[in-house]
């Protein structure tokens, strides 16, 4: 039985079989059901702009905001190129130039590149997966608004001349308190904080969304290839982002409190920053590239008019890149004097990644060969991407060679290299995606004719500007210089680069003109101009996307599942109705996408937006040294978060509800199958990486001076207190486990257990403070002390949150909001303890046991 026949047969069965009378909320396949779905997902008026949470709304805002940052950072680049057009030019002062190049890099990497690829995923993935929205809409909205407001604050620092000026990767000690006493560096840390919130939120959403909210029947092997790419990307964000979060925390601790992590005079090391930053920084560029490659893989079948060749190969290549990219980071540090053996190790790894990259490129080319490709504007941009990115990848193999990198590192050669891979590998696919998916965003098509102008101006402008830069760098021009002497042979090349950068900009201008112009034409519904096979083209423009959620049996449902749209509109899929006029989604199993649960989603509201605003104001106020404002805003933010958390895990009926198509599903899951459980797991994995980064810092300091440890003369004397601490935490953890077990039988014991947890945690904190105070380890005298305080502080924060969670569960239990059935809150808090307890024990073993072992 073919997929199409199977779908037809099931559809017929649904219409005929009645729903069991014990099942709640019967779903109607008629017009009344359709009206309720539309009403539940309707955009609220008048403040829908701020309160709407649906991925269509947030996704478009996200893309637009990212593009605005692209334009802003692009203008900075043009101004820089004016300055560099002539030797000895005085168009920009040194201070201004340094702020401009720092902001150009920072805004492009953190406020444009990562957010815009996340944005396309937010916009497109749910419908591509046959779903209506991302699994945590408020988290999506929070991530977006935090990014938009925080990013705008950081960008505005340019107008007050307090923009960061240490380069986009901000190496200490230049960015430490001594050499960057102003708040410029703090503005950078602030901006990054927002990006980090948005990115981790996106990672949680994407992983949970891809694994748990796919259309029924869409197994891992049938999901669109973009979903594979985004799954890998989200996992990379989950593991990579925390390394830079840790580095930032340490930098801010050094700047604000004098804890000398990066200060060599006090036992720290500037190289530590480089390790932590590039551990994130290298995967970061693949976090940027993989989604773009995923979009190319989605667009190509439409233009080649044939399925992607080597789907399994491409998925495999994405996974390979995801893992291997974490083994390359030292290639940014080849000139730092590390041992040649270590460098060669990373050199080999860096070149090895050419294999999964090559697999993707040849899969795409094979797809073109397999089909009958049409040269429309998105296809032009894809060809441009292939050409430019190949060159960038090849110069990448060159810089992967250690001795070659010793010449070209920190010169315009490497600037040319990374612009080739970033503009080729991401910007060109983004433009292809904009032309391709504009009908999904605005319901209208951009102009083919103007699109060709855009492409050629951008392509010629880019290549003519950046190809000479390879030579400029080899002729000796370092990067990040605001001027150069006129007698070194760089003049003509710089002028060429500067002139053609404006040609590239002209291309972008043509695109903008086209975009504004196209908004004036009338929108057309049901547009699928590329005859594309994927599901986002079957979703309407309304927030609900699909009237009902159809089972999917093919990688190319648009081509292979006939009558899909008619069946969907007729309500023959799951959830054809919204009986309580609330937004509902289907939760499915990770591998085979069996329906598991109906998830009630939050509707539009102010919480996420206001929480983002309050958080932004709190951090910004602290950065510009207005602590009163910061504290007030912080309290408001905390109140909003608590209000939000309290609204989680609402009371829901226990009986299964009608899900359409003759099946009934629970409205609630309280264990490993719930999306909340998965979300917390992803968050805790990121948390673990932060902790591991701090532990790495501690061990790194030991390798600098392994002879004497502790190196600052302090002593970790005695095992009594640490063992007592560990014991208290283990007790707390076991009682929390017990609380969960008892909750199933006798709720009074639950309360007792939770009280013991809180008391044990509190006692541990008190004991820990007394112990640490008694040890007399100074956090500012030596990096060792700073590392010990940071590790223990981190653990203490987790224990405190754990204690708060115990009290939270206690209150909810007393109010009847936790019972043997409705216990997800308890279980998620238990997850927290399952992380905190081992983390505490391991940290104590490190701090107490390590000096003992090495002495």
């Amino acid at each position, binding site marked *: 039985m073919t997929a199409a026949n199977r779908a037809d047969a099931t559809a017929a069965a649904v219409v005929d079989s009645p729903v069991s009378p014990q099942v709640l909320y019967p779903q109607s396949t008629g017009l009344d059901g359709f009206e309720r779905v539309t009403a539940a997902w309707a955009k609220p008026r008048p403040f829908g702009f701020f309160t709407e949470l649906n991925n269509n709304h947030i996704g478009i805002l996200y893309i637009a905001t990212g593009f605005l940052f692209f334009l802003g950072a692009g203008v900075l680049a043009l101004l820089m190129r004016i300055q560099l057009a002539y030797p000895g030019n005085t168009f920009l002062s040194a201070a201004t130039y340094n702020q401009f190049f720092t902001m150009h890099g920072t805004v492009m990497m953190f406020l444009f590149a990562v957010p815009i690829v996340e944005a396309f995923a937010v916009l497109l993935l749910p419908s591509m997966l046959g779903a209506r929205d991302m699994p945590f809409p408020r988290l999506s909205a929070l991530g977006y608004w935090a990014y938009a407001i925080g990013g705008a604050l950081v960008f505005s620092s340019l107008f007050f001349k307090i923009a960061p000026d240490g380069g986009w990767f901000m190496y200490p000690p230049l960015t430490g308190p001594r050499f960057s006493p102003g708040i410029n560096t703090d503005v950078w840390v602030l901006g990054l904080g927002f990006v980090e919130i948005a990115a981790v939120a996106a990672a949680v959403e994407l992983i949970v969304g891809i694994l748990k909210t796919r259309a029924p029947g869409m197994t891992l092997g049938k999901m669109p290839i973009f979903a594979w790419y985004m799954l890998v990307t989200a996992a990379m964000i989950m593991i990579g982002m925390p390394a830079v979060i840790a580095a930032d925390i340490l930098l801010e601790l050094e700047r604000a409190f004098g804890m000398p992590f990066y200060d060599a005079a006090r036992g720290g090391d500037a190289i530590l920053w480089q390790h932590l930053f590039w551990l994130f920084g290298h995967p970061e560029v693949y976090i940027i590239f993989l989604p773009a490659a995923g979009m190319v893989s989605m667009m190509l079948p439409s233009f080649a008019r044939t399925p992607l060749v080597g789907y399994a190969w491409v998925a495999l290549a994405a*996974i390979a890149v995801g893992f291997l990219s974490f083994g390359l980071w030292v290639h940014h540090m080849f000139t730092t004097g590390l041992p040649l053996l270590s460098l060669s190790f990373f050199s080999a790894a860096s070149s090895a990644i050419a294999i999964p990259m090559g697999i993707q490129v040849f899969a795409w080319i094979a797809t073109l060969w397999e089909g009958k490709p049409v040269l429309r504007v998105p296809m032009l941009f894809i060809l441009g991407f292939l050409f430019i990115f190949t060159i960038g990848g090849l110069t990448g193999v060159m810089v992967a060679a250690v001795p070659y990198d010793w010449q070209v590192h920190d010169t315009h050669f490497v600037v040319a290299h990374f612009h080739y891979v970033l503009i080729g590998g991401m910007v060109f696919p983004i433009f292809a995606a904009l032309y391709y998916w504009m009908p999904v965003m605005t319901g209208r098509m951009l102009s083919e004719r103007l699109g060709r102008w855009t492409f050629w101006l951008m392509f010629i402008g880019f290549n003519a500007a950046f190809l000479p830069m390879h030579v400029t760098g080899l002729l000796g021009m370092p990067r990040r210089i605001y001027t150069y002497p006129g007698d070194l042979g760089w003049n003509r090349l710089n002028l060429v680069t500067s002139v053609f950068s404006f040609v590239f900009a002209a291309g972008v201008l043509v695109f903008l003109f086209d975009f504004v112009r196209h908004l004036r034409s009338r929108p057309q519904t049901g547009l699928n101009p590329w005859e594309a096979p994927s599901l986002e083209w079957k979703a309407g423009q309304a927030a609900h996307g699909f009237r009902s959620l159809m089972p999917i049996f093919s990688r190319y449902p648009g081509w292979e599942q006939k009558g899909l749209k008619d069946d969907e509109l007729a309500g023959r899929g799951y959830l054809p109705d919204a009986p309580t006029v609330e937004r509902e989604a289907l939760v499915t*199993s990770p591998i085979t996408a069996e329906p598991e649960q109906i998830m009630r989603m939050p509707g539009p509201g102010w919480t996420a937006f206001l929480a983002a605003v309050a958080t932004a104001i709190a951090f910004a106020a602290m950065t510009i040294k207005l602590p009163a404002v910061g504290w007030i805003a912080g309290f408001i933010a905390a109140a909003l978060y608590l209000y939000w958390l309290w609204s989680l895990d609402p009371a829901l009926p226990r009986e299964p509800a009608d899900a359409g198509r003759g099946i009934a599903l629970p409205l609630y899951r309280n264990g490993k199958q719930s999306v909340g459980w998965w979300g917390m797991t992803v968050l805790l994995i990121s948390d673990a990486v932060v902790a591991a980064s701090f532990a790495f810092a501690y061990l790194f300091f030991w390798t600098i001076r392994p002879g004497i440890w502790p190196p600052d003369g302090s002593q970790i004397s005695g095992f009594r207190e640490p063992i007592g601490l560990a014991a208290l935490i283990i007790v707390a953890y076991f009682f929390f486990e017990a609380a969960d077990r008892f909750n199933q039988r006798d709720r009074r014991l639950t309360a007792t257990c939770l009280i013991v947890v809180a008391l044990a945690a509190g006692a541990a904190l008190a004991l820990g403070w007394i112990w640490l105070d008694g040890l007399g380890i100074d956090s500012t005298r030596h990096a060792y002390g700073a590392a010990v305080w940071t590790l223990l502080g981190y653990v203490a924060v987790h224990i405190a949150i754990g204690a708060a969670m115990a009290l939270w569960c206690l209150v909810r239990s007393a109010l009847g909001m936790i019972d043997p059935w409705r216990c997800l809150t308890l279980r998620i808090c238990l997850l927290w303890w399952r992380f905190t307890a081992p983390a505490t024990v391991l940290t104590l073993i490190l701090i107490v046991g390590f000096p003992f072992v090495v002495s």
Partner: protein
Amino acid sequence: MESVETGPPSEGLSRLLDVAFGFFVWAAHFLIVYIATALACALGPLAASDGGGRAALLTALVLVTLAAAAIVILHALRRYRQQRELSDHGFPLSVTIGCDAIALVAIIWQLFPILLVPACA
């Protein structure tokens, strides 16, 4: 009422992560080799370009590499046999075996620098 916890056993986290098993072995191998060489150079036993010390480290690293390679190959073989029996889990198993293959190449590839570059230069 009983809490609903378990789903079909093949859907758990471990089943999902098994696809990338080869890469987890790669990551462990990478860490072991990198940390061992970094420590050996930092702590001095290799810094004196002592032939015996270098030979001992090299042998140890080659053995670790062979062990990692063997683990990955065995895993791939096991999944391959499973794939021939089952009919409907073909895709995840293909990707699993492919990941094992690339991880194997990456693991052995790391031997190049270890063998060709003088230690701690």
